[in-house]
């Protein structure tokens, strides 16, 4: 039991921090422009594919640096020539634009790289078990993911709270007009934040590609989960995104690890049920089964009962 909890905890933290890399960019972009970027996870996917292609020719480590930069530049272009243009049609059009972009990027990825899963692997230098605990291995690559994610988190926190750029960004989030009056180029800040957010998503893709697989559906798998995190954590709140990422990461890993079902609960109270009834699926529900729907349940509950999210201070 202890080993189960230990490894679930560790895996949950790795997943959670990975999700945070996506969610941090998304929540910053949202709080600035008021647009929930549907294509955010698509940039994550592009990061993985770029890194895969680069790793064939130049190796993993070059990809780790270059791919996120490329994705960030692409994101900046999308903001400058796409989103800013669509802005004139209103918020709903912007949301639909990012949705269409997500659809288009998936098709483009299938067009360029094909529909099959790519053989994008972790570098050989990281292919060893870091430690063995109760007979279970913990791969070094996961530790590497952990280190990178924590490093990014600290870096982001320092930039946003300690640097001048961070100050301007924070000002632009809360009072964009006032910041522009003071002589700062707010559209440029928007473009920069969008680009950096996309680059972070790309970096998440680079390091998640080998662990979770590089295939055209990878954006779809993570995309809606990241939304859940941003909404649950509170739109625009970086702390909220961090807590919610860890929460969702742990929730998912523990729900899969702990194999309890409604049946067990009922047997605890000595209740039996009819095995042929139409509701039989309800009585045999188990935690791993409902693991994929837990985040969405949480999302709906949060939106109904606390629309500001856990740490947010404003409604959307």
């Amino acid at each position: 039991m202890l080993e189960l909890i230990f490894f679930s905890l560790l895996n949950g933290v790795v997943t959670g921090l990975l999700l945070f890399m996506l969610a941090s960019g998304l929540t910053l972009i949202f709080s600035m422009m008021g647009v929930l970027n549907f294509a955010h996870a698509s940039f994550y996917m592009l990061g993985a594919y770029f890194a895969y292609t680069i790793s064939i020719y130049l190796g993993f480590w070059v990809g780790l640096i270059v791919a996120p930069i490329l994705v960030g530049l692409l994101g900046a272009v999308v903001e400058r020539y796409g989103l800013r243009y669509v802005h004139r049609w209103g918020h709903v059009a912007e949301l639909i634009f990012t949705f269409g972009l997500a659809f288009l990027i998936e098709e483009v990825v299938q067009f360029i790289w094909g529909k099959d899963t790519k053989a994008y692997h972790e570098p050989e230098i990281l292919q060893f078990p870091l430690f063995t605990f109760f007979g279970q291995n913990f791969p070094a690559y996961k530790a590497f993911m952990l280190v990178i994610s924590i490093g990014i988190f600290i870096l982001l926190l320092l930039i946003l709270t300690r640097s001048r750029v961070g100050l301007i960004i924070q000002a632009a989030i809360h009072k964009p007009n006032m910041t522009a009056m003071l002589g700062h180029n707010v559209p440029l800040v928007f473009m920069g934040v969008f680009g950096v957010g996309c680059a972070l998503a790309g970096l998440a893709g680079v390091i998640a590609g080998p662990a979770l697989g590089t295939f055209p559906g990878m954006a779809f798998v993570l995309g809606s989960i990241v939304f859940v995190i941003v909404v649950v954590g509170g739109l625009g709140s970086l702390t909220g995104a961090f807590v919610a990422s860890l929460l969702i990461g742990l929730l998912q890993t523990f729900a899969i690890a702990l194999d309890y079902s409604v049946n067990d609960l009922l047997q605890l109270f000595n209740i039996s049920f009819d095995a042929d009834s139409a509701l039989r699926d309800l009585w045999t529900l188990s935690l791993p089964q409902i693991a994929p729907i837990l985040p969405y349940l949480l999302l709906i509950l949060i939106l109904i009962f606390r629309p500001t999210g856990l740490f947010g201070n404003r409604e959307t």
Partner: protein
Amino acid sequence: MSEISKTASPATARPLMKTLLPWIGFFILLLALPNIFSSNVGLYTMNLMGIFVIFALSYNMLLGQGGMLSFGHAVYFGLGGFMSVHFMNYIEDGDFTFPMYLIPIFGGLIGLVFGIIIGSFSTRRAGTVFAMISLGVGELMAASSLIFVAFFGGEEGVSGDRTTGPDLMGINFGQDIHIYYLIAGWVFVTVALMYLFSRTPAGRMANAVRDNAERAEFVGYSQRKVRFVSFCASGFFAGIAGGLFALNFEIVTEENLNALTSGTVLLMAYIGGVGFFIGPIVGAVIFTLLQSILSNYTDIWQLYVGILFVLTVMYVPQGLTGIFMMHTAAWRMRRVGSLILPYLRAGVPALAMLTGIAAFLETIHHMRSSVEGETAMSMMGVDFDSHSFVAWIVILALVVVGGYLTRSQLPQLKEAWEMANKPPAQREGAGS
């Protein structure tokens, strides 16, 4: 204000015959279509079209008329389909007797019930919150459909048999043509009902809440209730579309209520144009044509649909119907004729450019996906070698020359457009 009075006064003053004329035309069109396109593929496509027309129109009750952007509309479509297919099976088992052609009613009812349940908490806000809740509900339902196997049938879905019900005048819907007329009948009735709904005070208030919720509240309408009514009606019609889907295909799977179907309906409605009642109909027809015809010719049709969608969102947010409607001012002044030549001058090179781009994509796709050593490919009836130098020169020439000529023709097009739309006395901003 002036615009409302402008559009409202001719509508009330219009003679009854003129109001009914489009509907009579629609009726005759529905009757005549299977005689024109009588092949199996034609019937299949038209059946699908009819289902999607209802589905897209029901979606537009949310997005276009109510200002609610939903990412989970397939939930009601799928649930309607599952409910209907279960009732088809009850009829087959003899549990109760019910005419098969009315089965979509059950689909509509479950759509309505879920519309009431989900609408009761999701319509509190429009905008991003509504979109997020609809996304969450959509994902929840899609994931649940794989868990509750008894109702959703797991991954293989639930199948039924539409021919087992009591006959209607000797027709048991065994043939495609029968199901076509069944769907056509449902399409006519539901389209008329949805049109009438948009004319009721509830439908009008939905427009008001979409445009300015705060003002609507001051007039004394609860924005939440107005949205709720639209939401429930939309769920009902989506359920009917799902029921027709079940009747037509005799199988309903998890795919019918997942995010992909929700995205498809958004695509259809938006490409067609959400600002017009007829927009989603146009969108559904075009999308189905693309899906069933274009997919015969190319593997990458979804890429084209994606490009079309993004371009629509960016440059023509009124949708394809909007482009046509832009010409009403010129049409009324009988000046459309003067636009034909400029359109041809800009359109022909633009078409050449688009052909070049499509050829470029197709050739690359062919080079990457075909069997090793196979270089011969054909596009639009032209056979060529995808690795040959000449083919690439032609493609490049099409794109560059076409693009350059299109660009050079744009100023005269703009001028002709302004000439055609310049009103004799006062300016009307129809072409902006």
